[in-house]
């Protein structure tokens, strides 16, 4: 067998296709082209709304830092929340710009590399958000109580209560990672749940990194 012989057959089939293919232009025109514009608008609104939320958190934590700079215990908590908010906002902005600049008409290898890079950024952000959320809720509660109600939880709540809440957060993170590693390959019908567990366990990140390396290697002559 020579591929060049089969190429002739392939070409003949292509010629046949002209007579048997029917592209339903009317269907595309009537219902889908309008929706394409709507979907783009929705995506832009969703991403922008996420960034606005990040910026509000950034502003609020900055304000908290400024007003409690003289109190070390609140300064530490404010810094922690502010650092997380900066990370989240930076990642959202990076993804927003990346998606806005994405041109599907660019060469395939380049776009697939960019898509893999964006996917890695999304998974990393999501993974760290999932991992830090159970640990951060306590500092956020302390900051909210102090910031809005002027209640100092360090004085009003018992130390064992604070420690127990922190340890509970650590346990939730550990249980999440364990469940992710153990069960992420199951529940094929529950896509979002499986995806969440795989993100948490890091397996989706590994796959995305492998894909990026594969794309980069493809450009090399020797690959």
């Amino acid at each position, binding site marked *: *067998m*020579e*591929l060049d012989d*089969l*190429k002739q*057959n*392939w*070409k*003949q*089939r*292509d010629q*046949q*296709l*002209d*007579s*048997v*293919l*029917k*592209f*339903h*232009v009317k*269907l*595309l*025109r009537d219902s*889908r*082209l309008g*929706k*394409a*514009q709507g*979907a*783009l608008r929705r995506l832009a609104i969703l991403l922008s709304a996420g960034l606005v939320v990040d910026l509000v958190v950034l502003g609020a934590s900055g304000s908290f830092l400024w007003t409690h700079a003289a109190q070390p215990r609140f300064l530490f908590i404010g810094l922690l929340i502010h650092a997380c908010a900066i990370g989240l906002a930076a990642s959202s902005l990076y993804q927003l710009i990346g998606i806005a600049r994405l*041109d*599907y*008409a*660019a*060469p*395939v*290898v*380049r*776009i*697939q590399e960019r*898509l893999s890079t964006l996917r890695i950024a999304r998974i990393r952000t999501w993974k760290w958000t999932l991992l830090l959320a159970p640990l951060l809720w306590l500092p956020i509660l302390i900051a909210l109580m102090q910031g809005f109600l002027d209640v100092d939880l360090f004085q009003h709540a018992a130390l064992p209560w604070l420690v127990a809440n922190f340890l509970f957060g650590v346990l939730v993170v550990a249980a999440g990672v364990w469940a992710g590693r153990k069960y992420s390959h199951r529940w*094929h019908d529950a*896509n979002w749940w499986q995806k969440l567990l795989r993100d948490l366990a890091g397996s989706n990140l590994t796959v995305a990194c492998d*894909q990026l390396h*594969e*794309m980069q290697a*493809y*450009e*090399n*002559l020797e690959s």
Partner: protein
Amino acid sequence: MTTPVQQERFLRLLEEHQRVLYKVSRSYARGSADQDDLVQEISLQLWRSFPGYDPRLPFLTWMYRVALNVAISYRRREGRRLSKQPVAVAPLLEIVTQEDAQATTRSAPAEGAGALQRDEDLQRLDQLVQALAPLDRALMLLYLDEQPHAEIAAVLGLSVSNVGTKISRLKRRIRRDWNRSANGD
């Protein structure tokens, strides 16, 4: 902003090059429901990208780039999912006169036997192409479509010499796999 004139031009070009939609969707999706999903996704992405289309670039090159980018992303995203439910809406792209083509084959037995052998060969070739990695599959699709090496390089973003080397390797691999499948390995 797209105007009705632009829309008409886009739809005319899309109709003219509908074979690309068919070939790419066939190579990257399995089952008619998934293939139709992919045709829809490619069509919509083509429409979204159309305002930025530079007419200095051949439409076919531009269309291949968008279609392959969407198809590879689709494949990576949907790889784990098993297609279970048929698409409820009418398909955008379908083969409408298959019965006529089969009737012609039946009416000319000598030609029909040759056509059957050719169909079997093409089916085997389809299977071998489907087994390739996504970028190799794109390369093979463009090669079988008789695109010049320079054009393949422009679509994929590789150097012309790299395209030549990769095609030679792929040809060797397909020949080897073809012989293996013929020997029942």
